[in-house]
């Protein structure tokens, strides 16, 4: 199951709205202090949809990621499903 966890605090709430805008995800119910945003194969989230400033945007996956980053800059974030081990991802892959 691929997706990312969003901590239940105000500054990350708009990440869920932006993910839903992509139309390719399911937002699970709050469990503990996190919501899981599940996606199939891939998802693209645009910063403009989150209305986050850069300081928050660049930490927006801090709740945890079950997937792999294929693109992450000031404009957009692209994630894909992966089975790669955590330490198998090189620095190059993360940029």
């Amino acid at each position, binding site marked *: 199951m691929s997706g990312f966890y969003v901590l239940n605090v105000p500054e990350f709430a708009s990440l869920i709205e932006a993910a839903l805008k992509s139309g390719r995800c399911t937002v699970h119910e709050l469990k503990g202090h996190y919501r899981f945003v599940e996606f199939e194969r891939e998802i693209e989230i645009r910063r403009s949809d989150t209305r986050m400033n850069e300081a928050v945007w660049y930490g927006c*996956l801090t709740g*945890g990621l079950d997937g792999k980053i294929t693109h992450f800059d000031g404009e957009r974030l692209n994630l894909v499903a992966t089975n790669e081990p955590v330490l198998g991802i090189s620095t190059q892959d993360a940029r």
Partner: protein
Amino acid sequence: MPEPLKLQPMLHGVDHTARPTWKLRETVKFYRDILGLPLVHCISAKGWGREKENHADFLHFFFDSGNESTIAFFYYIGTQQPPELVVPKGYIAMANHTAWRVESEAELLAWQKRLEGHGVNVSQFVQHEVIESIYFRDPNWYPLEITRSLRDVDVPDAVDAAATLEAAMELEDSGKWRNIEQLWRDKVKFVQASQNAELEKA
């Protein structure tokens, strides 16, 4: 004899932080006159103790930074600044900074205007997750921050911080940690554990 401590020892906020200066006049002008922090105490003493190091005679002076805290400096008379204590350029050395609290956006704006009015190079407002800040430097190039709280931190923040640090320490131990994506992926198991713990509590 004082009674033995029965409780977990507590801290009650910052009394003072201190750093050395080799720019006495500029430091006093900046903290007392530009920032307007009252000079509240100054020790002037003959160097004592640390005989092997030939401790210099010195001043140790304190500016009131509010809420019963002070920012303090040492001036070691007749010494030269060691090269390793020159604040390096770049972001890494900025980690070593002092951040003062204000109560409102209006206060933060007032500080920004005051600093700009004195010719201090001050940043725009930067909004982080739970604070909003301005950044500037003192004459010693020490980084300073003035910040306001955007919200109180609560239980979810502490739970999340613990999960982040557990994953981070595990990755540090591996000796192979290179990027934040590894952390975000490794953290999932700690997040799930916290979720299960919450469910068990309920």
